C-alpha cells in the first residue's frame, strides 16, 4: 500500500521526473553469454575457494559424523534437510533472533553458480531466514547437477521472482574495512562448507 501522507510527495516527484526525463532511449537486448567453463563443477570449486569457502567433493554418506568431525565443539546443530535431524529444527524458533544460539546450520541449496561459487538460499530452504545469518558455521548440500554457468543463468531461477527473500551466499562473511586485509567472520557466518550431494531421487533442478 502507499502511505496516504506520501501521496502528495509521490505526485510531485513523478511530475518533476516527467518534466526532466531525457528523450527515451531504447532498452538494449541482453545477450545470453554462453562462454561457460568446460567443467562447471571444477569452476564452481575454484570460484568458491577464491571466496574462502570450502567444497567437499567426495561423498558424505553420514552427515552427522561429518558435522561432528568437522565441528567437534558444536552443540546446537540446526538442520532443515531431511537427511539429517540435527539437534534443533528451524520451526522451533518463535523469534528469529533466537537463531543466534545455533553453532552449525545445515541446509540444501537449489542452485550453485560456477562463475562465482555462490549458492542460492531462499526463505523456502531457510524457513527462518536468520538461521544462515546468525549461525556460526554453515553447511550447504548442493547437487552438482544444479550448478549453472553464470550469474545470468542464476537470475533465471524462479525464486527471484517468487520468494520474499533470496540470498546468493558466496563464502563466509568477511570484511576488509580494517587495514584492507579481509578477515572472517564479520557479522555473519565464520565458515561456509558446500557438500556435493545429489538430490535424493531427482537430479534435475528444482524450482
Amino acid at each position: 500500500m502507499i502511505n496516504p501522507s506520501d501521496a502528495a510527495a509521490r505526485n510531485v516527484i513523478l511530475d518533476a521526473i516527467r518534466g526532466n526525463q531525457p528523450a527515451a532511449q531504447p532498452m538494449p537486448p541482453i545477450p545470453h553469454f554462453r562462454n561457460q567453463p568446460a567443467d562447471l563443477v571444477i569452476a564452481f570449486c575454484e570460484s568458491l575457494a577464491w571466496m574462502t569457502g570450502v567444497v567437499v567433493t567426495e561423498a558424505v554418506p553420514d552427515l552427522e559424523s561429518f558435522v561432528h568431525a568437522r565441528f567437534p565443539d558444536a552443540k546446537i546443530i540446526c538442520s532443515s534437510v531431511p537427511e539429517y535431524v540435527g539437534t534443533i529444527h528451524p520451526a522451533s524458533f518463535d523469534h528469529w533472533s533466537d537463531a543466534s544460539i545455533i553453532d552449525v546450520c545445515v541446509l540444501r541449496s537449489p542452485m550453485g553458480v560456477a562463475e562465482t561459487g555462490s549458492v542460492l538460499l531462499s526463505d523456502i530452504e531457510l524457513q527462518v531466514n536468520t538461521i544462515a545469518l546468525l549461525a556460526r558455521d554453515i553447511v550447504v548440500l548442493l547437487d552438482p547437477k544444479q550448478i549453472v554457468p553464470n550469474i545470468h543463468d542464476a537470475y533465471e531461477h524462479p525464486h527471484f521472482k517468487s520468494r520474499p527473500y533470496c540470498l546468493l551466499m558466496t563464502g563466509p562473511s568477511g570484511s576488509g574495512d580494517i587495514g584492507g586485509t579481509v578477515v572472517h567472520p564479520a557479522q555473519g557466518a565464520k565458515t561456509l562448507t558446500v557438500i556435493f550431494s545429489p538430490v535424493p531421487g531427482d537430479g534435475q533442478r528444482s524450482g
Partner: protein
Amino acid sequence: MSRPIDQARNAETFLADTAHEQRLDKLLWAMRMRRDAAARQVPEWEELRTLASQIKEHTLSNLAEYLIQFEANAIANGAVVHWARDAHEHNQIVLDILTQQGARELVKSKSMLTEECELRPFLETRCVRVVETDLGERIQQLDNQPPGHIVGPAIHKTNKDVAILFSQKYGSDPDNEDTAYLAGVMREHTRPDFLKAGVGLTGANFVVADSGAIVVATNEGNADLSANTPSIHICSAGIEKVIPTTESLAVFIRLLARSATGDTITQYTSTFRGPRKGAAMHVILVDNGRSARLGMKRFWHSLKCIRCAACMNTCPVYRRSGGLSYGSTYMGPIGIIMMPTFEIRKYSELPFSSTLNASCTNVCPVKIDIHEQIYGWREVMEENDQIQVVKKEAMRVAGVVLSHSALYRTATSTLPVGLEVLPHSVIYSRLNAWGKHRDIPDVPYETFHEWYRKNRHDEVMHDQPL
C-alpha cells in the same frame, strides 16, 4: 551562504602524516589492480559495461514509468512504499515508523543515501539510538567522522587507529592491532544490538521494477541481519537505483564487486521482495535533488552511478588526499560531479581537485563520462562566477600569454632569470599552489624554440600561436 570547501587545504592535514598518506595510496592502488585483474577474466567485460550504461540510460529516460511499475509490484508483494521529496521527508518517515513501533533503537547497514540525508544526527537529536553495523561505518561513527570512502568508510585509518579507538569505546586491548581481533571486538559488541532491535534499515544497491524487489550487496552479512532479525525492515533507496528487470540485474551484479574490490561477487547478494509473515517492509523512494539533476543536459549521466568507488581507487588526487578532505557525502571523482548539484557555492572548488587524466572514466562500470563532467562543472563555476579571484586571474593571465606567441616567448626566456633573482619567499608564495609540496624544477638553459632556431635554421619557422 556556505564558504566553498577547500579540498586542497583540507588534504594538508592528511598529507602531514606521511605514513597514512602512503599507506592509503598503496591500498587503493592495490584495489585498482585487483579490479583490472578481475575485469581481464571476463571476456565480455567491455560489452557488459556498454550494456550497463545503456540499461541505465534507458531506465533514467523512462524513470517515472519504472518507478510506478516497481511501486505496484512491491505493494503486491506486501511492502509499504513511501515517497520522500527531500532529506527531511525521508528522515521524518523513518522516525514515524520508529515511533509507531515504539522503537528507540535502529540497527542499520551502510547507506550513502542516509549519509546524504544526515539521518543519524536527525534521529539522535530525537532520542533514537542508531547503531551502524558495517564495520567501517561503525568505526567512523565511534570516531564521530563521516565515511571517507563509499565502499570502505574507514579505509584511511590504520589498525593502530582502530585499536586505540576500540579501546576507548569498547575497552578492548589498545595494543592488539590484529585485524581479526578487532573485527571480533566489533562482532561481539554489535551482535546484542541485532538481537534486541525492533527495526532495521538497509540501503539498496538496486531496485528491480519487474519483481518489486530491492537488492543489497554486502560482504559482512550485516545488511541481511539488519533486514531479517528485527520484525520491521526499512529500505532507503534513491529513485535512480531502479533497473527494469531481474534479467538486467545480472549485468550489474557481474560488474559491481569486480569494479569495487576485484572479487567476483559480494559474500551476501540478497534480494528482498517483501516482508515475511508477521513482519513489515517499508521502502522509501527518495528524490532529494535527483529529479532536478535528471534535467541537467550535461550532468544527468552521473545518475547512472552504482557506487562501486572504482573511480576513487584510481584517482591520484583522491589516493593522495583521503576522502574526508572533500568535506562532502560523496567524494573522489564521482563526488566532484554530484556534490555541486546539491549546493553549487559550497562545492564550487571540488571540480578543480582533479588532474582530468580520465582514469576515472576508463574504469567506470557504467561508462559515466566523469572527467568530461568534471571539466563541465569547471565551466559552470566560471559561468556562475564561482571561481576564486586568484584562480580566475591566473587563468586569465595564462590565457593571454598562451594565445600570444611573442608574449609567451618573452615569458619563457625571462623565466630562468626571474627564478634566479627572485627570493624564495616570492617564488614559493601562497599564490604558487603547485610549489606548495614540490620544488620548482630547474629551467632548461634554452627553450625548444631557441634550440630549433639554432639547429634547424634552414627550415622555415612558422611563428604560429602555440
